[in-house]
């Protein structure tokens, strides 16, 4: 997309307010984006610390450092915090920073609601974390909170958990409505739908998924609340309900949720690969169609998480084929990324390293997903470490690598400074090695039959578990380097040019670095 900015001077009526109230009262999409990103970083570190506890316990067979009860709380909180506190807010933060700048809008469509969607999040996670100190401990039923573990057998803190999920959901829904409205209503003249940058497209689709499924999650936790405290029997067979009903409702939310965590990554990676290949992205419109088909299909595959609960045969077959169908548009995307790089003038700055690693490692996760989608095979794999390996491959070197790539790619625009390339590359290689050493062996121990969600295991799994734990420590501690790099960049460094990257295209690269507090107060002209 090429853009001509009519009046480039953008006289800004006022900059940010001083002090803490700037952050508390802000209606500025850049401020709110920054808040989301820092919040998600904090959650990433807290959730990461929990992962370190988990891997330390699993370093050797036998019970070493935590009680089984506490172990269960750790895996539950780790999952919830990483998904709802780490990945999702990071993407919302990126959407806040980038969507208005990419489409030439002055801000998000509903700026005050934007502030509200952020500020309820810290409260939600405060409630969730405070449950650690409550009688009976924190939630211990896994991030999927299956009934009756989460109803009949749950600790009292489940009530707090339920309400904190409600708040997270409200935050996501408001954030998503804001994104949809911004994209539908605020595009500068000339930014037609099929000229929108792919990150914007990916978020339009993601936001639609969010608005469709977060209320279903709210329904699920509401039914739990009623079953626990008010005598209903949604998930209790003795009263005519069915615990499997919980799983259906949960996964009707849960599977689109995993795409919520990967579609924005698709958008990010497309931009980065395009820039560092110095070529036009291969197959723009097929990228859009692929994302749309993935999003639509994601509503009809949920029961692939439930193959072993005793579904009718017809359902197993339907959900198996529907799931496999998703591999087609996913394959289109991977093909297009590779085709974009083919014969490009490639350079491998840190964002590109993360993006290329994304393509390779996410594909590994997609392939293990295909294996899991085969019903008879899944009877073996289900609830083993193979599943853990699968979803960590799509989420860590998938979603999280894309977030890190995005930070390296856009931080010069945000802060006005270049990050330290040498340190960035170091961070990449440590993370890349760490992630593979952690999760690749989990395929082996999973195929060999090690069940997930236990603090102890049989001796035959000992070697690979130790390897996995060493990888996890490496990956975990490398992230402190990331924190250091980000802080260093924000504090100073080589000044970034406006375009930052030689091959970068798009409206956000036409404004100054750092981006002025208000951009595109009058819409730019795009042709």
């Amino acid at each position, binding site marked *: 997309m090429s853009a001509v900015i009519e009046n480039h001077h953008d006289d800004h009526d006022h900059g940010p307010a001083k002090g803490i109230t700037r952050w508390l009262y802000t209606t500025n999409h850049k401020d709110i984006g920054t808040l989301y990103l820092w919040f998600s970083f904090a959650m990433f570190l807290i959730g990461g610390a929990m992962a370190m506890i988990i891997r330390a316990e699993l370093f050797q067979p036998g019970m070493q450092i935590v009680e089984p009860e506490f172990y269960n709380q750790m895996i539950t909180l780790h999952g919830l915090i990483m998904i709802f506190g780490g990945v999702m807010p990071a993407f919302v933060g990126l959407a806040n920073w980038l969507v208005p700048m990419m489409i030439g809008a002055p801000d998000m469509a509903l700026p*005050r*609601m934007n502030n509200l969607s952020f500020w309820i999040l810290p409260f939600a996670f405060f409630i969730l974390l405070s449950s650690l100190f409550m009688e009976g401990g924190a939630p211990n039923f896994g991030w999927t909170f299956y009934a009756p573990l989460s109803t009949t057998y749950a600790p009292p803190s489940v009530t707090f958990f339920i309400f904190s999920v409600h708040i997270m959901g409200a935050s996501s829904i408001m954030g998503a*409505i804001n994104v949809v*409205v911004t994209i539908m*209503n605020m595009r500068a003249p000339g930014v037609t739908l099929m000229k929108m940058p792919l990150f914007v497209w990916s978020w339009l689709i993601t936001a639609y998924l969010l608005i469709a499924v977060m209320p279903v999650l709210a*329904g699920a936790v509401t039914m739990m609340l009623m079953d626990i*405290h008010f005598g209903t*029997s949604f998930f209790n067979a003795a009263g005519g*309900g069915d615990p499997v009903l919980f799983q259906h409702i949960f996964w009707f939310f849960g599977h689109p949720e995993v795409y919520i965590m990967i579609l924005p990554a698709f958008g990010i990676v497309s931009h980065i690969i395009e820039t560092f290949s110095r070529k036009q992205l291969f197959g723009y419109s097929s990228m859009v169609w692929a994302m749309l088909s993935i999003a639509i299909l994601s509503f009809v595959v949920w029961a692939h998480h439930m193959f072993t609960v005793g579904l009718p045969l017809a359902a197993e077959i339907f959900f198996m084929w529907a799931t496999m169908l998703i591999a087609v548009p996913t394959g289109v995307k991977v093909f297009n990324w590779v085709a974009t790089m083919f014969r490009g003038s490639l350079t491998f700055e840190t964002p590109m390293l993360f993006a290329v690693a994304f393509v390779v490692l996410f594909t590994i996760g997609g392939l293990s997903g295909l294996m899991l989608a085969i019903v008879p095979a899944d009877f073996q794999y289900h609830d083993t470490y193979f599943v853990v390996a699968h979803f960590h491959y799509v989420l860590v070197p998938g979603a999280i690598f894309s977030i890190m790539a995005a930070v390296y790619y856009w931080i010069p625009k945000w802060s006005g400074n270049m990050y330290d390339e040498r340190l960035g590359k170091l961070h990449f290689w440590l993370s890349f090695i760490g992630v593979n050493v952690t999760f690749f062996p989990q395929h082996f121990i999973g195929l060999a039959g090690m069940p997930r969600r236990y603090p102890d295991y049989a001796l035959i799994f000992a070697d690979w578990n130790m390897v996995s734990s060493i990888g996890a420590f490496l990956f975990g501690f490398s992230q402190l380097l990331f924190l250091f790099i980000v802080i260093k960049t924000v504090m100073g460094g080589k000044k970034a040019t406006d375009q930052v990257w030689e091959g970068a295209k798009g409206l956000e690269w036409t404004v100054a670095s750092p981006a002025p507090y208000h951009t595109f107060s009058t819409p730019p002209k795009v042709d």
Partner: protein
Amino acid sequence: MSGGSYYVPDQSRFPIFMAVSLFLLVMGASSTINNLDDPTSNSVYILYSGFACLFLTMFFWFRQVIKEHLAGLDSNQLKQSYVYGMAWFIFSEVMFFAAFFGALFYVRTLAVPWLAGEGSKGAAITAIELWPAFESSWPVMTTPDQGNEYDLADKSMAWPGWSKALLWLPLWNTIVLLSSSWTVHLAHLGLKKGNRKKFNVYLGVTVLLALIFVGLQALEYYEAYAHYGLKLNSGIYGSTFFMLTGFHGFHVMMGGFMLAIMLARSVFAGHFEQHDHFGFEAASWYWHFVDVVWLMLFIFVYIL
């Protein structure tokens, strides 16, 4: 997509106040619910203060938005944002109800027959072992465990047959709610023609009908509890019945409240113009949505 400049409000205190209110609200709600059988617990006051703060914040926030509107700060583009925003909000509400309707369809067509032994695998076999006496029917009057854990109802809310149709409250509720959708539409037509009196009168009638609906619904619940023995804990039928109608009733109250505010704004402050009245339109969309949900309830919860 107009070329004009879009109104981006300055810093605002409302959102953070609202966030704190919500925090108080859910902390209060969680601890109240966890201490339901402890009469000495004071958590309910946290809940009340959360509600109070929430209402206050919303009052001042909306007042601010209306003021900005009257000051002419909002462009057509901003109005369009409100239109899209409201539409997507209603869509999210649709999906919330979809979860409960989904649960209803699932238990009716799959779970309950399986519990009674239909099919040959998993659930069916377990259920036959555990509860051999259970027979599948809808409404489920006797739970699989024969009411061990649950208070069985004597009578359900289902269609009573033509002879008793006129005494059947849900029918009246349907009539009331459908007419209210019509009257709110008439009010809208009045406004569009610049006939304020017609607008006020029909909007007033709509609010009245909303009140009647809520009253009838309360009466129905009273009957259910007092005369039918049908309670929230009467097994899956009571669960789905009360949760679906309860959430609907709650939405009727919210929608009715919104319409009442619109009425007050029109009567006391002369708000809304012939061609510019999205505040009212948003409330009326919400009202039509609530109406459609009721139709679904009427068909799938009461009649079928």
